[in-house]
């Protein structure tokens, strides 16, 4: 166990998997000579050479398609998108090819590929580059979507994602790359589809994933001062979704607040809220609350930007509403 940053944990996962399996390759913009836009792939070109760590042209549709083709041909590519905002260029490759190939070929082809990069708002990036796009990818059957919140989870889930025989979208965040945490050295695997209780509590269930988990934990501490004992569940994986962990918690606490930094309409958060409302109906003492990003293009003005994001205050207010406090 050592305390390392999120980017170092991801690098360890990549390094260990590339070491372990020659078919694992990394491709994307600036992943090689520049060591990655966010330095996740630092040192990998030197260690594994230009055949396995490939700098691509600035053409998301092109290198995403190359990755999918390589996966169909038997490699296990990791495609780095400099940000998920740029992945909009490559949506057709992911949705029409990666997600459908196994199904439409009757199982003749599988697509063992990981698409990874930072997703979600990261301050001062403007409306086009501040989007949380998980609900777009989570919408399509055939894709797995993973969104860790800690360095240890990042390492364990990325290793599982690389070994998975299906396309996996792996969501990171610019704001998390420098966050440190205890990470087990060597083989550390977390299965896809297992949520994690980040804080046990009995009065209310806070459900989140990725970057806002930390905010939910801070809100839980603030609420503890008011005598409210909140449970924080980190979904970690959006597809497959660990419904059982969610329902078990809500059935104990009878109240649920979901924290999701993407826009609220047709989001992962609104979908989970619907699942909880339907499957825990008789155990709910209050409507499920959703704390999300506001339903606006992200403002560049920083004050407005912060107001458009979830916050500890917004979470505490939603909890109090659900507690009728």
């Amino acid at each position, binding site marked *: 166990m050592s305390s390392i940053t999120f980017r170092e944990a991801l690098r360890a996962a990549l390094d260990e998997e590339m070491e372990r399996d020659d078919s694992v390759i990394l491709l994307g913009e600036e992943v090689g000579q520049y060591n990655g836009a966010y330095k996740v792939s630092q040192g990998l070109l030197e260690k594994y050479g230009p055949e396995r760590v490939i700098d691509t042209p600035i053409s998301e549709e092109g290198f995403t398609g190359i990755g999918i083709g390589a996966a169909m041909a038997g490699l296990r590519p990791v495609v780095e998108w400099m940000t998920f905002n740029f992945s909009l260029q490559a949506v057709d490759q992911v949705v029409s090819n990666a997600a459908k190939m196994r199904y439409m070929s009757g199982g003749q082809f599988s697509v063992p590929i990981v698409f990874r990069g930072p997703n979600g708002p990261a301050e001062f990036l403007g409306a086009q580059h501040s989007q949380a796009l998980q609900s777009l990818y989570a919408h399509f059957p055939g894709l797995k979507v993973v969104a860790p919140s800690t360095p240890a989870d990042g390492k364990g889930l990325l290793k599982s994602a690389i070994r998975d025989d299906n396309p996996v979208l792996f969501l990171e965040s610019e704001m998390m790359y420098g966050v440190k945490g205890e990470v087990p050295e060597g083989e550390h695997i977390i299965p896809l589809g297992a949520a994690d209780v980040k804080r046990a509590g009995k009065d209310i269930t806070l459900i989140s994933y990725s970057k806002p988990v930390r905010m939910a934990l801070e809100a839980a501490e603030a609420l503890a001062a008011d005598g409210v004992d909140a449970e924080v569940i980190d979904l970690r994986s959006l597809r497959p979704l660990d419904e059982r962990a969610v329902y078990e918690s809500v059935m104990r606490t*009878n109240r649920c607040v979901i924290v999701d930094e993407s826009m609220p309409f047709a989001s992962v958060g609104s979908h989970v809220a619907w699942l909880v409302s339907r499957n825990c*109906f*008789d*155990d*709910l*003492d*209050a409507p499920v609350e959703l704390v999300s990003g506001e339903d606006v293009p992200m403002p560049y003005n920083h004050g407005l930007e912060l107001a458009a994001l979830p916050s500890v205050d917004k979470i505490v207010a939603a909890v109090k509403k659900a507690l*009728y406090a």
Partner: protein
Amino acid sequence: MPEKVLMIALSPTMETGTLARWRKKEGDKVSSGDVLCEVETDKATMDYESSAEGTLLKIVLPEGGQAKVGDLIAIVGKPGDDISALLAEAGGATSPRAAGAKAPLAAPSTARPAAAAAAAAAAPAASAAAPSHGARVKSSPLARKLAEQKGVDLRSVRGTGPGGRVVRRDLDGLAAGAAAAAGAGTAARAAAPVLQPGPGDQVIPVSGMRKVIAKRLSDSMYTSPHYYLTVAVGMDELLAARSRLNSGRDRKISVNAFLMGIAARALERHPRVNSTWNTENILQHPTADIGLAVALPDGLITPLVRDCGHKGIAAIDMELAELIEKARAGKLAPQDYTGATFTISNLGAMGIDEFTAIINPPGSAILAVGAVRKEPVVENDTVVVRQRMRITLSCDHRIIDGAMGAAFLRELADMLENPLLALA
């Protein structure tokens, strides 16, 4: 959108309310929290605070009228709102239910059981035809599940969530005893035949309070196995202490205040007596909240003084005096008479030597107090004259076994005989 104002349960046991007085007129502005009207419940006259905002468009229930919990009594909205649909719906909802309620009474059920059964069968059909959303109670799904488990009628619960929604906390206070009581009450009602009045019988209508007394005391007697312990207590020292304490006081501290204060201290030493049978477990209460039965012209009520163990005799007496005054004026609020963990009933002033009382739930024991009399007593083989009083403890055997009840009563008697012991 005009909003319906429904009769709500203003006491835990209220099923019907009588409109005593409208405090707002049609056309008056209404804010949330304003007192709309005064409603006579089964126990007291309560202020009905509005949860709606707007203008009082229509008074549906006139002063003096009766409405069941959940019935429409008024409509609040914006001037010009169309309220005809709400009125039509209320008309449809209330009249068949009233007819349904009358049917079983009209049927001579003892003489012709078949006809009674037919009438009873017809009644639900009639009310089923009525639109039921007129009486819908907003409640969380969890509250509905808990209410079903406890056998509580949600219409009898006052919702504290948004818009009067019944939520879990509104049901938490209701012990499962409420379920047991409701169950037993139903059984008792089903078993009791309704007789046709015989020649010369005077038919006396039953007041709301009388119904509550009948139901609660029957439930208590039928569900809790009572047994009784009696002891004679020498009162010379306590009465001497009382007159010393009262000399120079304008208002004399009552014997009842002494009884409550000393009983609280005895309960502290025997905490199991201060508890509630809760079907699956026993709730032992942290404070002695002692009720005192107070006779009223048509019935009785047991206002209670909370946490008597931490109050002096004078403070208890002061609270008691206020409560008795409120009780006689019909102004007790539900929290003034709900939830006694122990009760005292004193018929000494009526010259009764000793009697047994029926336990007042959720308590599990009640003390029946007789008159103080001068009696010959043998002390050191000599007959002396002493002031003595007989007290009888009724115990719920589900919680208090004979030896436990006896130990409590012995300690209480010793403290009454020698009040200094209460301080020890």
